[in-house]
């Protein structure tokens, strides 16, 4: 057994040490209250006090605070999961805590020997079985399991708490596997019956086998409406992300849990004093892919795009980061977290030493471990609560095809959705190949197929029809010049629009009053409120000629500032999906959504005086 000192000495460092005065602040009070002393897994994290504070928030909200499940029940779950994962450190610590809570030692021994026959009441046994199943293979849990718990009398408040406790156990064990803290107390022997075996199904008839759960939709527990006006954390999330992810919406039954998670996630993921945000999001993406968690994969792909990576780069990191353009050091980082996240027993001090040889500091290595742990926490919560995706996942993942250790990677576009495009799926592929060989006829055919799309993209940015037609020529010449560089990793039409966009932006820059597409969202954007409150006619299209409506609309769209115009044109006129618009423009999905609403509302303001019910006597 390596100690945390050994682990970090493997990296040529020593981060152990007693907490200094600064670290004696709140987070340590929480742990002292919970354990009666400051456990070694905390001192092993003392290089980054903010991650200790984050951990304290989670412990306090999930475990220490009174909730729908008693503290003893929670500690029992934590103990059994630790034992199931053969985590001697946490078994010993959990045992001490249970003893301090008045649980007899022989009962604890019974739990470790054979929890099914430890005299636990049937409902509690069902809950424990559910938590073990979730911690072993979160993708195997489904609505049926949650319904089985309800049938045992558990309210949704208790179920959400049990899922959170399981997630916390997974978080703790991920940390201890990597940091290898010295035992705080005498280690207890693990009994074979509770040790993890691949062939051992959770032996509870009340917990259904839910391998077929894909057909059942979540979320599994009630999620009452929680307003971003009254719950300020939602307002902050909306401001930073442009929307409130379902991950948080699904937990509104427990605002205190939500608050703790948001604070912990913010403390761990946002600062860049150790790893960069791109490095952290890459870790989250890779480990989520390995956990087959398509919800989190979609989220982190979007986040990486928001941080400047292309959609293709983000997808490639998820599918096989070794084939991505990441620097070698970052690949080594991901090699390490893959071992930590999925093959925990292979995680070794030598692995940390290798990271140090790439120049990573002790803080960075520690943060890498903590980010992996919080990822596993989030993955467990998402799967346990059946949280529905915010975005269409870019890929379908299979265990054998994501970051395979010894096989070639296969990209697997999700059925029915054109996201990541293999050459064979793009109807233009054959013509593109011919054009790349210099066949002008093939190029002309390609151009004719997409003229309208190019024109609308140009018009959307330039806001002037004559200018758009001029820019069309530049676009086509540039496309032919660079077609040899097109590698088929996106649809050809997407690539063509990116050429058009660059041509239009170049023209835009040449204008005196430059309009920018790249400005970030301002307070004004997010706080825009409509002024026109007159009701509209029931069917405005019937009281105006088509030509009238069209002219009105075109004038309205063209008067929009470029950053809104381009979104409205591509989303509402060209009918691309929000995700596709984001890809075309190199923007994040949340940014597109914010601009889309603002653009639609501005257009509505423009149309209102013409289409209000009082005009032409129609409506109402």
């Amino acid at each position, binding site marked *: 057994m390596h100690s945390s000192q050994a682990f970090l000495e493997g990296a040529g460092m020593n981060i152990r040490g007693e907490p200094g005065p600064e670290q004696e602040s709140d987070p340590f009070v929480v742990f002292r209250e919970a354990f009666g002393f400051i456990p070694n897994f905390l001192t092993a994290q003392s290089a980054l006090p903010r991650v200790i504070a984050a951990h304290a928030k989670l412990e306090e909200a999930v475990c220490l605070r009174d909730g729908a499940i008693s503290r003893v029940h929670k500690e029992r779950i934590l103990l059994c999961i630790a034992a199931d994962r053969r985590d001697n450190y946490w078994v010993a610590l959990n045992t001490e805590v249970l003893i301090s809570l008045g649980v007899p030692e022989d009962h604890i021994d019974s739990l470790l020997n054979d929890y099914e026959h430890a005299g636990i009441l049937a409902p509690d046994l069902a809950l424990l079985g559910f938590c073990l199943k979730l911690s072993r293979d979160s993708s195997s849990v489904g609505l049926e399991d949650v319904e089985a718990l309800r049938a045992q009398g558990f309210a949704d408040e208790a179920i959400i708490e049990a899922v959170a406790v399981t997630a916390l156990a997974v978080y703790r064990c991920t940390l201890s596997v990597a940091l290898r803290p010295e035992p705080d107390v005498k280690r207890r022997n693990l009994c074979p019956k509770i040790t993890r075996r691949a062939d051992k199904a959770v032996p509870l008839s009340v917990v259904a086998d839910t391998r077929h759960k894909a057909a059942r939709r979540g979320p599994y527990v009630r999620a009452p409406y929680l307003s*971003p006006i009254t719950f300020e954390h939602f307002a902050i999330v909306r401001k930073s992300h442009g929307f409130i992810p379902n991950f948080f919406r699904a937990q509104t039954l427990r605002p205190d849990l939500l608050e703790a998670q948001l604070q912990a996630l913010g403390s761990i993921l946002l600062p860049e004093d150790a790893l960069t945000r791109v490095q952290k999001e890459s870790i989250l993406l890779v480990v989520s892919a390995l956990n087959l968690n398509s919800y989190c994969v979609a989220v982190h792909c979007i986040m990486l795009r928001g941080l400047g990576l292309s959609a293709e780069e983000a997808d490639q990191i998820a599918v096989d980061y070794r084939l991505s353009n990441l620097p070698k050091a970052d690949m080594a980082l991901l090699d390490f977290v893959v071992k930590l996240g999925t093959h925990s027993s292979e995680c070794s001090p030598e692995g940390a030493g290798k990271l140090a040889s790439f120049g990573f500091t002790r803080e960075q290595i520690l943060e890498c471990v903590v980010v992996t742990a919080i990822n596993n926490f989030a993955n467990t919560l998402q799967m346990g609560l059946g949280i529905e995706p915010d975005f269409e996942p870019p890929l379908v993942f299979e265990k054998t095809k994501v970051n395979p250790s010894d096989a070639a990677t296969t990209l697997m576009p999700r059925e029915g959705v054109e996201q990541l495009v293999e050459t064979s799926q793009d109807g233009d592929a054959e013509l593109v190949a011919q054009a790349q060989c210099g066949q002008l006829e093939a190029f002309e055919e390609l151009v004719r197929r997409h003229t309208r799309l190019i024109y609308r993209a140009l018009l959307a940015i330039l806001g002037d029809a004559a200018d758009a037609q001029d820019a069309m020529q530049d676009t086509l010449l540039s496309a032919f010049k660079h077609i040899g560089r097109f590698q088929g990793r996106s649809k050809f039409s997407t690539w063509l629009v990116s050429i058009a966009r660059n041509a239009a932006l170049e023209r835009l820059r040449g204008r005196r009053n430059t309009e920018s597409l790249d400005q970030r969202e301002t307070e004004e954007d997010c706080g825009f409120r409509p002024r026109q409150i007159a009701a509209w006619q029931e069917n405005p299209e019937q009281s105006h000629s088509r030509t009238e409506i069209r002219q009105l*609309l075109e004038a309205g769209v063209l008067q929009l500032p470029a950053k809104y115009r381009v979104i409205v044109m591509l989303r509402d006129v060209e009918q691309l999906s929000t995700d596709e618009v984001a890809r075309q423009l190199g923007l994040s999905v949340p940014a597109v*959504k914010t601009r889309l609403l603002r653009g639609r509302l501005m257009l509505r303001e423009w*149309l209102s005086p013409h289409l209000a019910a009082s005009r032409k006597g129609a409506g109402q």
Partner: protein
Amino acid sequence: MITCDEFFAEFADYLENQVSLEVRQELELHLSQCRACHVLYDSTRKTIRIVSESNSFELPQNIFDPIIERVMAKLRTDPS
């Protein structure tokens, strides 16, 4: 019932049909009782419908023919 500010905070996702059942129920209860928000919702929905169905910016394909022909002529004489 939620307030108008709360309704507006969810408005973008509601228009895109990207809200959970619980949120939708709250929003629709509000819409049934608040005329101002109902007007906003109704007119915005109509705006989107008009934009999507009006065939605006539709130009005959042949308007692009001269441009394409100019480009192709240039490429034939100087493909580099």
